[in-house]
């Protein structure tokens, strides 16, 4: 690749001199000392060849280079002892950027690589891959974040950000001096899945995995499959009965020889790690259906724990204070249970002649406007499905009882999905009357009073009055008496605190389970091997739920493609020759089973020695400093690496006069 064709031609920064802390002679002396020390370190490690470090600095299209002077950074770190190549690229993560790295390793014999770019969360794996393609051990690689921790954080201090970048890179170069090749930890993969939740998400995930030939344990806490969909009638946009969708999925999971279906059962404990989760299921396993516990060993866990409809507080829009105020699920049940031949809508002893639907109840809550939930937080999120549900119900009501006046009070109409806009259009055509309010100014729902402040005697006026500042009539204050109010309630996460604690699952500000990346990895969580399906992650409609379940299933299927699971190698290791078996480290370890004392034969004697379970060790390092004999090290984060890192961090930064290999790239 001859990418080195056009130079950016940026003039050298005027502040260039500021970065020099000592004169050249002084630096030269330091340089020699550091080189000497490194040579001694290498000698001790039995690898006397001088390392060849390549440093690659990313412009990130300008995200970094608009602030950090990357050319100067490259020039200066190019002079740090051990650095043989120092290059800049516009997008290091792009294919040409990666290719340059692997090529340099092969052609120039680099044996250590530093990339200074964005957060390692984004691209550490990317560059480990590029390093591997150069036939270099991917752990002889160091990632430096000069974007989130550099250019973005210090946007208004380019010189400071540049100096910081140089320091961070020299520290990484230092750390690499004592880095050792590491291998992924390979452990058995129990290629079976546990799916928690028997709603449509759980059933879909289980059915897909089973159809792929994978054994599934499907655990549902209630006695019935289908979850929240059991509470629904016809569903948008297909207008099929919810029960048909449930029945179709139920047919796929029942009597399926790949699926163990456990109703009335609960997952009471989970420990272990990807490929090796030990779970305890409590269910009717005992004699005569009595409750008992059984263990299950699975490789992946799909959480399909779903949602609960928001339950308004007592008195919120008169809910639970006036029987004429109901929620959407209650209204749907009411319609479901109504005699199909009914000529009028009778409720609570009244003939219902007007119904108001109120959007965003328990969703899109604003600071200072809405009363917080009992835990002090607001449901700031949109529940995504309520608009279409309300319009579907409003339309159905108008069609069934054309004499009933139907009102819709909304902030925005969010009929975004395929076929959903039609509900809005048709509701308008069928005479549903729309009112629009500002979020800061929600409608008031009150008992209807006459002019003297008494409840009206007449049965004609609706018992409930909604007052609203209506933006469709340019802010007019309107009072609408109605017979019934339907609160369009949103979704809240199911109460699964036990699972959250035992699996150590992250949750978001909205209390739903938190995915790894809200854009790119919506069904994975920070705990490897645990996947999210459906509304446990966020509100979504039926189709989106089924897609999320399919996506969770495919991730599990991919995890099961290999006989072994591969875990990152950053775990503690014990030097048995130094360990005295005192066990101080074991008492410090927070992760059950990760570090234990085992009996070993040493010189014909049985002694105790600490041993690490690589699958359970999280690499926190708590055991390392407590060992009086320095018998413990954390692979990839060894103490001598920290020392050389500090050396790198504290070393004087050279002048920018002499020219190492410095290439400007596209």
């Amino acid at each position, binding site marked *: *690749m*001859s*990418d080195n064709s056009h130079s950016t031609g940026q003039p050298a920064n005027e502040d260039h001199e500021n970065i020099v802390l000592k004169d050249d002679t002084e630096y030269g002396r330091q340089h020699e000392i550091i080189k000497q020390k490194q040579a001694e370190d290498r000698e001790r490690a039995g690898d006397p060849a001088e390392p060849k470090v390549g440093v690659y600095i990313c412009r*990130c*299209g*300008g995200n970094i280079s608009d602030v950090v002077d990357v050319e100067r950074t490259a020039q200066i770190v190019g002079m740090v002892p051990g650095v043989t190549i120092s290059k800049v690229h*516009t*997008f290091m993560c*792009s*294919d040409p950027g*990666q*290719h340059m790295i692997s090529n340099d390793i092969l052609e120039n014999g680099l044996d250590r690589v530093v990339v200074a770019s964005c957060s390692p969360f*984004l*691209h550490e794996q*990317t560059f480990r*891959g590029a390093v591997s393609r150069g036939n270099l051990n991917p752990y002889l690689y160091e990632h430096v974040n000069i974007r989130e921790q550099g250019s973005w954080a210090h946007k208004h201090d380019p010189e400071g950000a540049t100096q910081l970048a140089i320091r961070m890179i020299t520290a990484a170069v230092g750390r690499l001096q004592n880095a050792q090749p590491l291998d992924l930890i390979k452990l058995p993969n129990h290629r*079976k899945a*546990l799916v928690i939740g028997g709603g449509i998400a759980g059933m879909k995930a289980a059915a*897909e995995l089973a*159809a*792929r*030939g*994978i*054994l599934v344990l499907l655990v549902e806490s209630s006695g019935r499959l289908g979850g929240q969909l059991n509470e629904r009638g016809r569903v948008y946009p*297909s207008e099929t009965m919810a029960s048909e*969708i449930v029945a*179709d*999925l139920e047919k796929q999971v029942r009597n399926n020889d790949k699926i*163990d279906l456990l109703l009335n059962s609960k997952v009471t404990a989970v420990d272990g790690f990807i490929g090796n989760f030990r779970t305890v299921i409590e269910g009717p396993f005992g004699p005569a259906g009595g409750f008992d516990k*059984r*263990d299950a*060993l699975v490789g992946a866990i799909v959480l399909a724990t779903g949602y609960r409809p928001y339950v308004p507080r007592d008195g919120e829009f008169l809910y639970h204070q006036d029987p004429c105020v109901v929620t959407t699920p209650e209204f749907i049940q009411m319609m479901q249970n109504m005699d199909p031949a009914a000529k009028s809508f009778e409720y609570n002893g009244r003939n219902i002649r007007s119904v108001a639907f109120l959007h965003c109840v328990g969703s899109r809550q604003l600071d200072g406007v809405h009363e917080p939930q009992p835990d002090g937080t607001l449901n*700031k*999120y*949109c529940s995504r499905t309520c608009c279409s549900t309300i319009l579907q119900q409003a339309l159905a009501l108008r069609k069934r009882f054309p004499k009933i006046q139907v009102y819709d009070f909304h902030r*925005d109409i969010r009929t*975004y999905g*395929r076929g*959903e*806009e039609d509900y809005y*259009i048709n509701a308008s055509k069928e005479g549903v009357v729309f009112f629009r309010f500002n979020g800061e100014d929600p409608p008031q729902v009150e008992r209807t009073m006459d002019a003297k402040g008494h409840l009206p005697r007449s049965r004609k006026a609706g018992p409930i009055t909604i007052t609203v500042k209506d*933006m469709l009539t*340019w802010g007019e204050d309107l009072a609408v008496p109605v017979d019934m109010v339907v609160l369009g309630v949103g979704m809240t996460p199911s109460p699964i605190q036990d699972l959250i604690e035992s699996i150590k699952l992250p949750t*978001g500000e*909205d209390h739903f389970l938190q995915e790894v*990346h809200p*854009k790119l*990895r919506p*069904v994975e969580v920070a705990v490897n091997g645990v996947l999210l399906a459906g509304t446990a992650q*966020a509100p979504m409609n039926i189709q989106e739920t*089924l*897609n999320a379940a*399919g*996506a969770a*299933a*495919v991730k599990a299927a*991919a995890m*099961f*493609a290999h006989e072994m699971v591969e875990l990152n190698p950053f775990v503690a290791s014990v030097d048995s020759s130094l360990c005295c078996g005192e066990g101080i480290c074991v008492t410090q370890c927070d992760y059950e089973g990760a570090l234990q004392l085992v009996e070993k034969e040493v010189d014909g004697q049985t002694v105790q020695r600490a041993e690490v379970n690589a699958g359970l060790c999280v690499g926190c390092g708590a055991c390392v400093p407590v060992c009086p004999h320095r018998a413990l090290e954390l692979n990839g984060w060894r103490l001598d690496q920290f020392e050389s890192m500090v050396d790198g961090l504290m070393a004087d930064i050279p002048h920018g006069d002499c020219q190492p290999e410095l290439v400007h790239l*596209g």
Partner: protein
Amino acid sequence: MTTSTQDKTSYRPDAIIVGAGIAGMQSALDLADQGLQVLLVERQSSIGGHMIALAKVFPTLDCASCITAPKMSASAHHENIRIMVNTEVRGIRTVRGTHFVKLFKKATYVNFDKCIGCRLCEYACDSEYPDPFEEGLGAKRAIAVPFTNAIPQKAVLDPELCTTCGSCARVCPTDAIEFDQQSEEVEMETDAVIVASGYALNSLSVKPQYHALQSKNIISALTMERLLAPHGPYGRVLRPSDGKVPSSVAFVLCAGSRDASIGVPYCSRVCCMYSIKMAMLLSGALPIADITIYYMDIRAFGKGYEQFYQNAKAMGINFVRGKVARIDPIEDGDLSLHVETTEDAENILQERRHDLVVLAQGMVPEWNPSIGTPVAVASDGFVATPMLTAPTSTTANGIFVAGVAAGPKDIVDTIAEAGAAAMQVSQYLHQKRGAAAVEYAQDPVLVG
């Protein structure tokens, strides 16, 4: 054009994916990670789709290049994925469960096996034209690598613009330029297909009353994405007519969706959020500019989207509820917007002036598979998905759909759907092949 019934090699992928945007790449990766062989077919000269051209993505404000480039790279380097660019799917015929996919490989006039992506040809070429990747704002040569982070990094020659001067061939160090290259039609056999053909934006002129073709300062949403991209055509936000730094920018929502008069009655689902996102980025890039979003309903329905919308409001972006009736170009390249607002009873019909207007055009299907393949489309033109409990199934057995090909959706919903489609393919193949498929452990799950 030459035709051959079989590719030269005996390569027979387990699945062929039509389109290598984010949907196609995600499906390909999810299949390839299970050990299945995937052929990813892309009409353009690079994989990456629309996403690689975006500035940042909502609501995380991740730079789009930074999160798309790794997906592209992962697809390109995956041992189980092969990529064909500059290739169109011209038809699919299905015989006893086997799909024969007709692929039209467009001549690139560059031998990809020889091209090393050095770009010497590009620098030697004298024929320049507006760069489609930059939405026509920058310049591109008649022979060029598609864009900086394109995959593959191979030059492609555009015969319409080439003057056949031969400079490129003279500088090419590997003799990769082949002026006599022919387009070729090949037929590839496979067991499963995923349609991930994505979207196009409807045209700027779809609403003639917006006079978009009469002013360079009425731009498409994708053009604004490029202006905002850190590596965009100007490296900063300038208005196209005269290079002025805009001081008053308008976003006109539903400028090509939710509008029965132009045949797009549906919601395109992403325009509200991308407009809010670009408004936020603009207020960072141009701190003193006024930014106004004209909307009917703000549809911030996804995870974290409502909070993003509220943040934009708090940042001082003006949200005006009202449909823009007409846009007229006026003096100095500025624009006059006639708006009916619903907020001020005294002043319902307003004329507002801006110096740059972004139209939030709607999404329409990029490809109509109902011509030449057994896949039916619905009345909205997107692929029909008749199975309620399998939203990625099409009307054709063994052919699935992912992403915007099955209706507008944002990136995260596309990623989930791409995974779901991949899962359907893998279980479909498993069922189809029975005993030949991977066998997993079959001892009981429950123990003790």
